[in-house]
């Protein structure tokens, strides 16, 4: 139903099944959807990442082939960027694609390919020229996951199962027609895509307004439970109480900062420097919050499975462990701080 009306991709052109709405109109739709607490119709790499890239860099043939399927949810995409030896230094990637007639032969390993085991296609960065500056020999390539030589292995995290996979390419033959943009110009495409990813992350944070008053305190309630004090009684452990207040206040200060950025944007101001802190602060705050939840539970916070721990306790353990990765994925906190120091503060290299 949603895809028929073009609501899945409200800002994409109508000819590919999009809604053809302007940015402002899309925002209204988005707000309505949030107000009604409707789920996003189809969250995925296709819609939010490769779709916009195809609109910007794809050929007409490429758009025709993929966009409609993305909107209808017929094919699922995963992302092939990171490699075992290139984490923060993405441009050092080693997966090789060698031209062979109308095809490329791809060899290498990608990691952190979310839902690689379920995806139909992968968009990958591959090295097509090893003899130039590292950013200049990279190509952006679409690969059908059914192609012989593609193998996928799920990655288990310290928190347990995850959507992440390791995807290997052993002499995988990919048509050169699947190159997006120019050969060896993949870095430009990748950077644009990272831009889409950032706006997605900002959107994610931006969905909250500055927080509100009477919503109670989840961590305060949790502490009341584990310190075994009656409802509405103050916590007898003032040190724990101070930590809870600090984490809550971090969260509120962050929400207010996101709101400030949005209010400024609405008022027609250029994006201020504050948006540069969103990723690092949101993830570091989430780490502290999930760690504190485990700390509040004391010995009962140590469950992994089975008897003696309730479902919420077990979920909190996993959430705490999973959150450790927040400051690594999508650009480590260290990289974020480097970026702030350089681009916002203008500190010298």
């Amino acid at each position: 139903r949603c895809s028929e009306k073009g609501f899945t991709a409200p800002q994409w052109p109508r000819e590919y099944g999009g809604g053809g709405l302007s940015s402002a109109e899309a925002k209204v739709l988005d707000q309505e959807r949030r107000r009604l607490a409707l789920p996003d119709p189809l969250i995925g790499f296709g819609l939010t990442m490769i779709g916009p890239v195809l609109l910007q860099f794809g050929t007409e043939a490429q758009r025709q082939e993929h966009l409609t399927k993305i909107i209808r949810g017929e094919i699922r995409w995963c992302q092939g960027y990171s490699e075992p030896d290139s984490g923060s230094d993405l441009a050092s990637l080693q997966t090789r694609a060698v031209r062979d007639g109308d095809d490329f032969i791809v060899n290498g390993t990608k990691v952190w390919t979310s839902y690689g085991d379920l995806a139909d296609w992968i968009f990958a960065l591959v090295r097509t020229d090893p003899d130039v500056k590292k950013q200049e020999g990279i190509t952006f390539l679409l690969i059908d996951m059914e192609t012989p030589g593609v193998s996928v292995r799920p990655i288990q995290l310290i928190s347990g199962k995850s959507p992440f996979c390791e995807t290997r390419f052993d002499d995988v033959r990919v048509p050169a027609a699947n190159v997006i943009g120019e050969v060896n110009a993949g870095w430009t495409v990748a950077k644009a895509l990272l831009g889409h990813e950032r706006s997605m992350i900002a959107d994610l944070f931006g969905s909250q307004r500055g927080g509100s008053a009477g919503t109670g305190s989840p961590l305060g309630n949790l502490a009341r439970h584990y310190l075994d004090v009656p409802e509405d009684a103050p916590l007898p452990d003032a040190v724990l109480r101070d930590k809870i207040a600090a984490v809550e206040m971090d969260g509120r200060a962050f929400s207010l900062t996101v709101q400030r950025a949005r209010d400024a944007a609405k008022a027609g101001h250029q994006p201020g420097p504050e948006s540069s802190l969103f990723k690092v602060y949101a993830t570091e705050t989430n780490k502290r919050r999930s760690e504190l939840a485990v700390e509040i539970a004391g010995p009962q916070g140590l469950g992994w499975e089975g008897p003696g721990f309730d479902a919420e306790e077990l979920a909190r353990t996993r959430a705490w462990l999973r959150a450790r990765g927040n400051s690594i994925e999508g650009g480590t906190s260290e990289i974020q701080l480097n970026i702030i120091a350089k681009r916002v503060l203008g500190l010298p290299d």
Partner: protein
Amino acid sequence: MQLVLTEDQELLAKTAADFVEERSPVARFRALRDAGDPVGFSKTLWKEMAELGWVGIPFPEAVGGAGMGLSELAVVMEALGRRLAPEPFLSSVLLGGQAVLLGGSDAQQSRWLAPLVAGDAFLALAQQEPRSRYDLHRVACRAERSGAGWRLTGEKVQVLDGHVADALVVVARTSGAESDAEGVTLFLVEPDAPGVMCERQHRVDTRGAARVVLAEAEVGADALLGAEGQGGALLAAVVDRANVGLCAELLGLMAECFARTLAYLKDRVQFGVPIGSFQALKHRAAEMFIEVELARSCVMAAARAVDAGAEDAAKLVSLAKARCSDAALLVTNEAVQMHGGIGMTDEHDIGFYLKRARAAAQSFGDAAAHRSRWADLGGY
């Protein structure tokens, strides 16, 4: 609540920044200190600020004010905070002035607020006592009925700009024990009333303050500010407003201190490179940047919430005071460390920021006290 400056506020910010840059460099503050100036600020400059309309910002037009709010006053106090201007916005406009505005009779308001807004009179709040720390309920100073009026006895310390005040708003206890929540009453006391002794105190931040001793000081019935025994809520409302202003000042202070440190990191060369190229310092600078940005959001939100009488205004004030206190201490401590030896010398200005940050952080509730209040208000 919109967390963005209106066009009028932008204009005010620009005017204030220009004025402060031109008329109130840090050198002015230094000169006042070095001279041991008995007033501690410039009455001439204050009169100019009154003429610019700044003193009257949070007062109604009836007394000559601008009928604006803390959102506007915060813009001015941030600008003044950047260069450590010691003029008495906190003491006279907020602590003393808002007490009279929120609690005073029409007669008291017209008697005191009109000259205050005109820059001709000063008010101060005599609240702090040697043992009261951050507890607004803790009041040892007692007021007893005496004829038609009252007789006050007690000791007040660090009465900000109390040494120049034309009237003191004295927090006294008309019933109950020293730490009771109830029984607090406010009085308007003129410093030349019999039994009132005022002496100048000297704080680390060089801001003017006075010790006020009330030895059976006699005041008339018209000295009562607000209702008898209802001073607790009034005081809390006044201190919340004052804290918004103090936070705005701290925001300006930390932003400027950070900017100066950033400039130093770019200029200072050691081992053949600017020290700002060292990654450890870069990351610490980025952490400071984050804290300053978050503090700004909190100050804007607190000011707007108080102006709007929002339900969560008290929470947002405590959020702002906790964060601004911690952030200002972080930034000023790091500033001294990053400046190295020169930052430890009195002749460099950066130490002034450290001292003022500490004094502001430890006034009207430190960060821990406001986190505790946040938890109280959060019901845990």
